[in-house]
């Protein structure tokens, strides 16, 4: 009797679960990493898409650790139709055949490879291509810049409207902006610290004009600029004292808090992204700050920036790839004539609400003139810079990036000589790269 009841309930549940939705539309699932403000911005863009057409409904689902869950879902044969990844892990997913290339969809829209990519700022266009194919569209891009605290500049006798323009000036200003307790000698304020916030130092060698990968081989060792970079990193610890720096830095609060060292005035200059304005407004409203390009390490390296992007991809095995493309095409688009908030479309609506720059070259009049970020034009200019760099397009970037983090760490802690740390990293990454290549070749050999 009980068994029959149980079977009936199960059957009912299965029947209900498999029924098509009554609205006659195709429902697609979209997994994204964002919650809070950024999530609400994407939800608004999704709602706009759902409102403006009547064939597809996008179901937006914020998913923490979206990359790892995407791995498991794809392996299980049930991935979402659209997922939000980072430039950091895009290439390792592509190398493992986990994503669908978008080239056929793009061609069907009447674009060529070049005309599609030509809509984007070059650095973002480059992020989306790998092995001669286009794999994603940019949802929310970012560039980074030097942020400086104008009040601290004034107090140190520096011109608050004149940021450092060269590396030598950065070092000089950093010393002037550093203060110690006269009684104990302990640091109370520091002008600049390479390890704060610790997010972009993996690409510091490229800021110095160095190279990490030449498209075929790992080229970390043997590039003088890379060594120069890590010697510079170590020089800050040598200058201020290891114990001093360590103790001072342990007092830094969390990034998203009023105790953030830049917002609380403990560190006068930091490299931060276009998002920083949101956090300053939330945690330290009224903070007087300026934004400038990264100081040039040497002539020819002006307007350096580290660019990154959140990306929309279609996982291999997605149930509705065509409809997924319709959605990401919408997010990749914009209304060039938008004169008001209501007329913003796709990526511009998303980036307006997230207060970021658009990845596209063309901006609508409203987006350009009414953007809520006071310094947005600088971030736009940096995205166009020939010296803009992005995460390395290499399938082992996650591992390489951790290795680079360790090289930075041991140099900043004076635990190892920069040349030794570089040599060890080079050896490990060359081995890992060879291992990765072997794996790719093995799979290609198995293909019919």
């Amino acid at each position, binding site marked *: 009797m009980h068994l029959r009841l149980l079977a009936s309930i199960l059957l009912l549940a299965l029947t209900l679960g498999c029924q098509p939705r009554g609205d006659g539309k195709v429902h697609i699932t979209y997994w994204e990493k964002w919650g809070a403000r950024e999530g609400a911005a994407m939800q608004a863009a999704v709602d706009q898409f759902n409102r403006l057409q009547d064939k597809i409904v996008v179901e937006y689902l914020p998913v923490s650790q979206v990359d*790892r869950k995407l*791995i*498991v879902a*794809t*392996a299980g044969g049930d991935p979402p139709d659209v997922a939000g990844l980072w430039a950091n*892990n895009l290439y*390792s*997913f592509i190398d*493992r*055949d*986990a994503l669908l290339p978008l080239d056929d969809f793009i061609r069907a829209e009447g674009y060529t490879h070049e005309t599609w990519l030509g809509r984007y700022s070059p650095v973002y266009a480059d992020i989306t291509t790998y092995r001669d194919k286009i794999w994603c569209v940019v949802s929310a891009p970012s560039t980074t810049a030097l942020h400086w605290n104008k009040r601290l500049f004034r107090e140190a006798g520096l011109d608050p409207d004149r940021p450092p323009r060269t590396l030598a000036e950065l070092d000089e200003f950093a010393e002037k902006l550093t203060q110690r307790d006269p009684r104990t000698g302990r640091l109370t304020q520091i002008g600049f610290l390479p390890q704060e916030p610790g997010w972009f130092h993996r690409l510091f060698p490229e800021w110095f004009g160095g190279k990490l990968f030449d498209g075929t081989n790992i080229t970390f060792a043997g590039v003088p600029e890379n060594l120069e970079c890590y010697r510079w990193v170590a020089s800050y610890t040598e200058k201020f004292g290891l*114990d001093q720096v*360590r*103790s*001072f*830095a*342990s*007092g830094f609060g969390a990034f998203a808090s009023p105790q953030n060292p830049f917002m609380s005035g403990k560190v006068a200059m930091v490299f931060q992204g276009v998002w920083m304005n949101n956090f300053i407004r939330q945690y330290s409203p009224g903070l007087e700050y300026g934004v400038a390009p990264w100081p040039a390490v040497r002539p020819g390296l002006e307007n350096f920036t580290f660019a990154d992007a959140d990306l929309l991809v279609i996982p291999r095995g997605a149930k509705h790839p065509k409809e997924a493309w319709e959605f990401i095409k919408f997010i990749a688009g914009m209304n060039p004539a938008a004169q008001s908030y209501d007329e913003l479309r796709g990526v511009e609506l998303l980036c307006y609400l997230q207060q970021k720059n658009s990845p596209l070259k063309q901006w609508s009049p409203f987006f350009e003139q009414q953007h809520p970020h006071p310094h947005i034009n600088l971030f736009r200019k940096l995205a166009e810079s020939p010296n803009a760099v992005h995460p390395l397009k290499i399938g*082992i970037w*996650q*591992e390489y990036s*951790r290795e680079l*983090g*360790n090289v930075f*760490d*041991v140099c900043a*802690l004076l*635990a*190892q000589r920069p040349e030794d740390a570089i040599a*060890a990293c080079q050896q*490990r990454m060359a*081995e890992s790269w060879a*291992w990765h290549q072997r*794996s790719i070749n*093995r*799979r290609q050999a*198995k293909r019919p």
Partner: protein
Amino acid sequence: MTRAERQNLKNGLLFCGLWFVGLAVFTVYPVLASLYYSFCDYSVLQSPIWVGAENYQRMATDRLFWLSLKNTFLFAGLALPLGMIVSLGLALLLNTGVRGMPLFRTIFYLPSIVPVVAGAMLWMWILNGQFGLLNWVLAPLLQPFGLKPPAWLADPVWAKPALVLMSLWGVGNSMVIYLAGLQNVPQELYESAELDGANWWRKLWHVTIPIISPVIYFNLVMGIIGTLQVFATVFVMFGPDGNPARSTLFYTLYLFSTAFYDLRMGYASAMAWVLFLLIVALTLLATKLTAKKVHYAS
């Protein structure tokens, strides 16, 4: 077998059946699959390709594999004996029968049920180099000698000892097991020892320890298994890189990064099997070494 017995057997199997299915699907199959994957080039996202012992061979020359193993053994070598001594010491104190004992037992057990992440966040503040509670206490004590307390979590030399210190806060579980063992020691043995003129130390050494030796052995084995697999706290406090300067890159942390960031699940499976074999070997060694000292007389 009578009809009733057959019916009972059938019912029994039916009740256990679901559990057997669960065991087979969620434990036995993944364990066996990981053994197979450990001999494969496997990224999770693609089907595995058999590569023989390549993953195991790579371990021999993988610098991070050896570093993570060294870090793990150093941590275990400090945390395990200290943890056993402290938990046994606490259990002895909590077994003396002073007033308010249930309250003290609750207080000392309480940290064991604090969620891992909450505990880790709390200790990050206690061990903070500049504003930490511990250094606030230590600084004035060390000052007369011209010494300064370390930056703990930010110092590669002190990060592991800080974790050992922190691990002692979670000894509640083994303490309760010791306590149960201590309460089973027959009182007449103590009385007899007292008649022979034994002092507190001699009673402990000649009566208590031998009688609770199975409990000590049990805690030792559980400790070996636990300390060699330490993960969650370290991951929360130091991230997957085992900062600072990889001083806290423990075995499971490296295994996790290899599997889920680098997508080398085959290599990670091989690492998991090596860890399993190491734990089995150490457990057997512990059993052998303590065989003559563990008494099951009670």
